[in-house]
């Protein structure tokens, strides 16, 4: 187990290096002098421009620049935002928890919808109930999240005025304030995922129900409920949990859209705001953080997988 863990982490290192290289190259994709483009919208003194050139070593060859970029990253020095002149590391530390909160609550919501729907669909195969949930799932998968978000915002926020549509709630204002702010953004992000996981739960349940151990359980006269929940469901959940874990990484990507609809103060909104102001250092770092989170999540899922399914042994 330990050797597997170590090997898995070692494999992640070249990937992380590649990610840093791509985000590094991002800055250099800009046609022309990055500093001048960064500063195009700002009135700055030549010395600020000089400091930026110095920070990114833009007067040196690219491999020196890259080495310096890596060195800065390793020291936790993520640079300074051009527009707000604040430390990027601290603004990311402020916003990342909000994005993680949103991702987890969307995931929870998706699982709460998907698992029961998938089980009912599988146990009542080809019934009206099954077709309804499959159709709903198909529509859910095909619906663009930004459209769903706008519709929810219009209906619940503007027409009925029953849910807040702006920002994040505070626990100090009571539990409802906290939860009510989460509902619409989580729904927006979670519905597509719920649809995907419903289809997966159904397929996985159907497959497990044909297995020998389920037949044995039935043959020895166990009650159907026990067969379903103790024997079938536990095994059917393995692929669902894995997929859900991997989707957690994709949820992070969806954050760009959902956070900008609901003004959620997370990493996605930070990225979009940075793009609007052409704040290249912030774009670079937030892209990097998204990718690093994604790698960590994938790593955790891989490791968790060995615990959930004891049949899998990597060493």
């Amino acid at each position, binding site marked *: 187990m330990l050797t597997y863990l170590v090997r898995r982490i070692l494999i992640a290192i070249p*990937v992380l290096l590649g990610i840093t290289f791509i985000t590094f190259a991002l800055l250099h994709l800009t046609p022309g002098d990055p500093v001048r483009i960064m500063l195009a919208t700002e009135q700055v003194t030549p010395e600020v421009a000089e400091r930026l050139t110095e920070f990114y070593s833009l007067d040196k060859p690219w491999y020196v620049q890259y080495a310096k970029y890596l060195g800065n990253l390793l020291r936790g020095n993520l640079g300074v935002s051009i527009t707000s002149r604040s430390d990027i590391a601290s603004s990311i530390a402020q916003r990342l928890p909000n994005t993680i909160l949103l991702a987890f609550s969307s995931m929870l919501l998706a699982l709460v919808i998907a698992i029961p729907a998938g089980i009912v669909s599988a146990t009542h195969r080809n019934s009206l109930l099954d077709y309804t949930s499959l159709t709903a799932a198909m529509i859910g998968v095909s619906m663009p999240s930004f*459209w769903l978000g706008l519709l929810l915002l219009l209906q619940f926020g503007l027409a009925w005025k029953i849910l807040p549509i702006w920002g994040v709630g505070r626990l100090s204002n009571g539990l409802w304030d906290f939860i009510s702010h989460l509902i619409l953004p989580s729904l927006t992000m979670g519905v597509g995922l719920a649809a995907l996981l419903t289809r997966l739960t159904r397929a996985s349940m159907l497959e497990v129900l044909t297995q020998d151990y389920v037949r044995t359980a039935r043959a020895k006269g166990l009650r159907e409920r026990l067969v379903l929940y103790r024997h079938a469901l536990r095994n059917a959940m393995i692929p669902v949990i894995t997929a859900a874990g991997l989707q957690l990484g994709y949820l992070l990507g969806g954050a760009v859209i959902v956070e900008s609809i609901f003004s959620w103060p997370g990493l996605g909104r930070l990225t979009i705001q940075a793009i609007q102001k052409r704040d290249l250092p912030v774009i670079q770092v937030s892209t990097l953080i998204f990718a690093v989170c994604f790698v960590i999540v994938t790593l955790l899922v891989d490791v968790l997988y060995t615990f959930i399914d004891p049949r899998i042994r990597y060493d």
Partner: protein
Amino acid sequence: MTRFGRRRRQSEGAGPSGDGDAVRRVSHRRRAFRTFLRHRLALLGTLMLLSFVVCAVFADHIAPHDPLELNLLSPFQKPGSPGHLLGTDNFGRDILSRLIYGSRISLTVGLVVVGIAAVLGTTLGLLSGYFGGVIDILVMRLVEIFAAFPFLILAVAVMAVLGPSIYNVMLVLGLVNWPIYARLVRSRVLTLRETPFVEAARAVGCSNARIMFVHILPNCTSSLTVTAAMSIAGAILATAALGFLGLGVQPPTPEWGMMLNEGKDFLRRAPQMITYPGVAIMLIVLSLNFIGDGLRDALDPHLRG
């Protein structure tokens, strides 16, 4: 020499015992077609997609108005008002006409993106699986690195740097999408490489390129077709997402995602500005998903999830 490759390919869908006697070989394609036709949702999807294609091709004849024609005297017309079936937007432009012209953008971008991604991914996957060794390691590391970015994030960041335009959308989405194809083709090549018909081709002295492209590649087409259908849907969604964020196709071009972006400032006043473009995106994605499901069942049953 091609006969070996072709025989293998045609017998493949015939099941595990597909040794490919004459009768089976002839009927495979027809059977796949029949399976597809029996799939009612796939048929429905095909009809829906065809109507989008007709809209895109004959937009000039179908659209009741010029999609760019401003009419500042009649903005925010309600759906069903005379001359404007789906109403007008903040500039008094006819929403239905804009939607009809928008299908051109979505379908073109979807096809081009998948074209770029499939060619790039397939080539790299073939090389990686066939030669193995250092090439394989390099390509697979590259795949892992690209796959480590949440798809939309990388696209958004690159678009932000390159600047928004329809050509950049196609290029960026194509370059971000290729790893799926590389993985898929590589895994097929790894099995096919060891089959007797490839060995035979090598024995009679075929070049590596010939074996890869003439013998192995045709055997990957089933899986590739299914994946392509699904990823056109993904590409269309991503294009709309970029448009919605203001990073995609630029105004005044009628693009569905951008129409939603323009509509979000007039939510209460003109809900039609966001309702219909969203429905259009959903229907086209739905139709491609239906088709993808049908194709998978017909061509590649073992992919069934």
